[in-house]
């Protein structure tokens, strides 16, 4: 009986796998999309954590570059303290940021950002954002890393995947109908991307002396955005380890009890 189930399960797996392999082959052949290469991330794996220094640098990249167009509306400035920054450090980071509010007379005003404020949005509303960006509003980045397949690799790929117009082959220019004003990105679905290359070597100057290469900036901003997408990840993994250890102990106990109870029935 047990043997039958095992051999049948193997047969099932082989049958399905065979049929699927045939089908999968035909599909991969037809797709021209290039998948961004996998990189190792500090937050990967069951014990991975966020690299605080990288995430702090990533915030700098976001604040100095990305925030000109992309909102991060699910975050508040106080959340930055979770990146091992003190209250005063966060206050000094946001001292020049002005946020919209209503004055005592009910008239719209701008005032200095407080810790309790949500991140300032670059555009007052989606319509203005779209109008300022050729008709399509730049997406919010709060959960961007979770909102794409292999999010960290994808975002890093997009940020580093631009090919300048003069490096494109004539076939590519023809196939994707490109002009000098278009942006070609290796990893963007369809390759024509509205966003011009946002990062370049030395686009920012890091306070901690890290050399600001394009790759470094992209990795840092991904670290920051990964934290922004899933700020409770470390808590979750820590709790998970304890829960699983408890369940393992409980399973062992239950097994021992079950054997004891059944001892006279076998």
């Amino acid at each position, binding site marked *: 009986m047990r043997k039958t189930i095992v051999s049948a399960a193997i047969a099932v797996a082989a049958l399905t796998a065979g049929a699927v392999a045939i089908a999968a082959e035909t599909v991969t052949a037809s797709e021209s999309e290039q998948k961004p290469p996998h990189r190792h991330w500090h937050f990967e794996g069951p014990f991975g954590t966020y690299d605080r220094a990288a995430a702090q640098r990533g915030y700098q990249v976001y604040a100095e570059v990305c925030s000109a167009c992309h909102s991060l509306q699910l975050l508040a400035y106080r959340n930055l303290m979770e990146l091992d920054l003190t209250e005063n450090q966060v206050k000094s980071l946001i001292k020049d940021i002005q946020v919209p509010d209503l004055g005592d007379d009910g008239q719209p005003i701008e005032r200095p950002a407080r810790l309790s404020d949500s991140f300032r949005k670059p555009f007052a509303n989606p319509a203005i954002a779209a109008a300022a960006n050729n008709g399509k509003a730049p997406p919010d980045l709060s959960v961007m890393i979770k*909102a794409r397949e292999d999010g960290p690799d994808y975002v890093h790929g997009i940020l580093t995947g631009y090919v300048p117009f003069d490096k494109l082959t004539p076939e590519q220019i023809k196939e994707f109908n490109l002009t000098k004003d278009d942006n070609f990105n290796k990893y963007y*679905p369809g390759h024509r991307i509205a966003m011009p290359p946002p990062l370049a070597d030395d686009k920012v100057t890091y306070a901690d002396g890290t050399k600001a290469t394009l790759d470094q900036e992209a990795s840092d901003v991904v670290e920051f955005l990964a934290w922004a997408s899933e700020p409770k990840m470390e808590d979750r993994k820590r709790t998970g380890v304890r829960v699983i250890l408890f369940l393992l102990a409980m*399973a062992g106990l239950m097994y021992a009890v079950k054997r004891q109870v059944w001892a006279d029935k076998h």
Partner: protein
Amino acid sequence: MASSHGTPPVFNNKVIAWIDHRLPIFSYMEKEYHHFPTPRNFNYFWNFGAIATVMLVLMIATGIVLATNYTPHTTMAFDSVERIMRDVPSGWLIRYLHMTGASFFFIAVYIHIFRGLYYGSYKSPRELLWILGVVILLLMMATAFMGYVLPWGQMSFWGATVITSLFTAIPVVGDSITTWLWGGFAIDNPTLNRFYALHYLLPFVIVGVVALHVVALHVHGSNNPLGIDVKGPQDTVPFHPYYTMKDGFGLMVFLIIYAGFAFFAPNYLGDPANYIQANPLATPTHIVPEWYFLPFYAILRAIPNKLGGVLAMFGSIAVLFVLPWLDTSRVRSASFRPIYKWFVFVLVADVFLLGVCGANPPEGWYVPLAQIGTLYYFFHFLILLPVLGKIERPLPLPPSIADAVLKKNAG
């Protein structure tokens, strides 16, 4: 511990005796969950009923907590879920347990159904028990579908669009029914509100049907791996502690795997597109339902005609209702059915194949594969089972459960 079956219990505690004399809940528990005579030869497939019950309770408990923090409005639903993830204390825990719990509830129930198929648990006198189970499956599907709409992501919205639009395939009244379901002329706030109300209601309906399922189970007792009837006390053990402890062990193993996903890969079983807020103006390239609907989704798309696809999809569940009468074999357990034993696994492979087809865009080889898979699915139930019962020669059945167990242990 194991007193003889059928003796009314005597309660030493005066309060319990007083209550039980007026409302015999303690006698009931004694009878149905303590002394309840249960076949002594269960294997671990018999754990999944208890596991599914635990998952149902867990889903309701986490769901009620989520409901206290969720806002069912198209402009606020997405952000309110993220607020649970970020600002509500342990909100991430409750939400990921609920989200992953839906998948593991279905895993438990699908294994439970497979157990029923393999060991013929649907056969006389357990037909109504089986039918109530199919009702639970249908209610679970409706609940899961509406729950998936609540975070108001892209897959929530477009999944709801695909599924509710199925009703437009009904001739004459289809469009009116769809408008009635939506509460308007498109999926919008009224749709989200009613789905939320129903998503909260249906789990309690499931609890009710589960209660009937258990009542029906306790009339003739459980089936068992040999598929033969219990002949006397030597064939059974009291439910407690024998099966409470065995179920407890199986449950722990199941929970370890569940916790592995909930804590270390909570988004693995979901679609990344559901972290993009619903946008009625931007259709995702591939609209896919949650994994547990993929085989049915493949059946829906396998038929090149919309109404035909809808009928086939609902038919794939409807056929389960009449399964007890389609299977003409009088032998329950596949262990004694040399041909059926293989075909039940071919059916499982077929369902997996349909699942893969459902996950992929309907192009290339996936189209004929899904069509073959659909054809085979109905062939299995409508043609193979009735015919097999007539032509198959079952192996000789053991005289009794006790006999088989003792022989196996001796040899």
